[in-house]
């Protein structure tokens, strides 16, 4: 087991991009080596050590390496991007693109996560204890293929476009979501325990979306397809009475998306 402690050195002005902060990249490196790794601030590359105090405790393989960020990094983008193994724990909030394209390992944020968390994620676990921004687990602009695998858990609320173009994997939001959750979803599972504002499941062609709370503006292209008692969605057991809708008929004549809404 190895622990890499990163202590933010103070306020960050222009946001930095630090995809080097990955458990599998930092694994087996000495503190000085890590400090010398480069991050981007605007068009300039600067050593990570300019922004963080680095301390390495113990040694170990990548999969048993834990990176702990001991503070707020909400102006640090791309933490854990593309990570394949190991663990990152962030005690504060994280910036944009947290765990984007992640393929394995796990990331835990105690605070909030910026937009594009888990974009095009392929595997692993991304856990956000606070709130998340827009585009969680989404596809890139213009693409209809978003997250393909892995799991995202959000304890708080998420904003818009969550799970857009979802192909596979699972996103669970304990709180509320805003607009267009599961838009263009074509596989995988999204569970929202709270409410949704509008566009839930809009343009969905496949996969499953379940909303336990209220949907303020129901997507007009969903047609009721029956009722179910405590449905089981993958390994998630839901409790209570649900109306099952299929859609989105606004996007195609033969859509395969399934939307569960809790009744009562």
């Amino acid at each position, binding site marked *: 087991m190895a622990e890499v402690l990163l202590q933010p050195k103070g306020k960050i002005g222009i946001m930095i991009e630090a995809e080097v902060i990955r458990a599998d990249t930092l694994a087996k490196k000495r503190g000085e080596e890590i400090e010398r790794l480069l991050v981007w601030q605007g068009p300039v590359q600067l050593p990570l050590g300019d922004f963080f105090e680095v301390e390495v405790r113990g040694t170990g393989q990548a999969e048993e390496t834990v990176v702990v960020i001991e503070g707020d990094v909400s102006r640090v983008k791309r933490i854990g991007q593309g990570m394949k193994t190991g663990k990152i724990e962030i005690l504060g909030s994280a910036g944009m693109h947290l765990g984007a394209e992640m393929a394995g390992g796990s990331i835990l944020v105690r605070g909030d996560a910026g937009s*594009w968390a888990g974009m095009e994620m392929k595997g692993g676990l991304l856990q956000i204890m606070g709130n998340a921004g827009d585009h969680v687990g989404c596809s890139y602009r213009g693409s209809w293929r978003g997250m393909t695998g892995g799991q995202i858990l959000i304890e708080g609320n998420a*904003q*818009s*476009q969550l799970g857009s173009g979802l192909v596979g994997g699972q996103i669970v939001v304990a709180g509320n979501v805003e607009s267009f959750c599961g838009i263009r979803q074509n596989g995988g599972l999204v569970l929202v325990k709270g409410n949704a504002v*509008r566009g839930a499941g809009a343009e969905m062609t496949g996969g499953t979306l379940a909303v336990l709370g209220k949907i*303020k503006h129901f997507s007009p292209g969903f047609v009721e397809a029956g009722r179910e008692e405590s449905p089981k969605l993958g390994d998630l057991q839901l409790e209570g009475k649900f109306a099952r809708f299929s859609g989105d008929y606004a996007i195609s004549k033969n859509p395969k998306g399934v939307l569960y809404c809790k009744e009562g």
Partner: protein
Amino acid sequence: MEAMLNLFVSTRGSGKMMKEFLLNTGSTIEEGRLAKGGSKLTEDYTQECAVCEMNPGDFQDLGSPQKVKITSRDGRYSVAAYAHPEESIQSGQVFMPRAIWSNVVVDPETFSTGSPLYKGSPVQIEPTKEDVLSAEELVLKLYVRS
């Protein structure tokens, strides 16, 4: 964000007459004429653009004020403008020409699109005695640190 969908939520408090509206901003031909003609710092421009049009019913409910104060959703910014009743506007909505006065209270959230809510921003409106400022005065008051 649900606020964008709520029409006409009355938030009467502390004896103040204050209502929530959805702000729609847009071009008017005179605004266009003055802006394209480089007259943004003129009194004509203020008269044309520092204006808040609302449904006559809402106008009456606010006590037919000469001027109203429009406040952004987060309460951080507000601006005074001349109130006008206007039949073409549905209850719960207000219209302001697109110009500095309206943009002071437009919500800066872009939903990760780059474009703020120029149409359909939730705002609060109350009658006011405050002066309607010119564009120049507004910049000096709100933006330029002395």
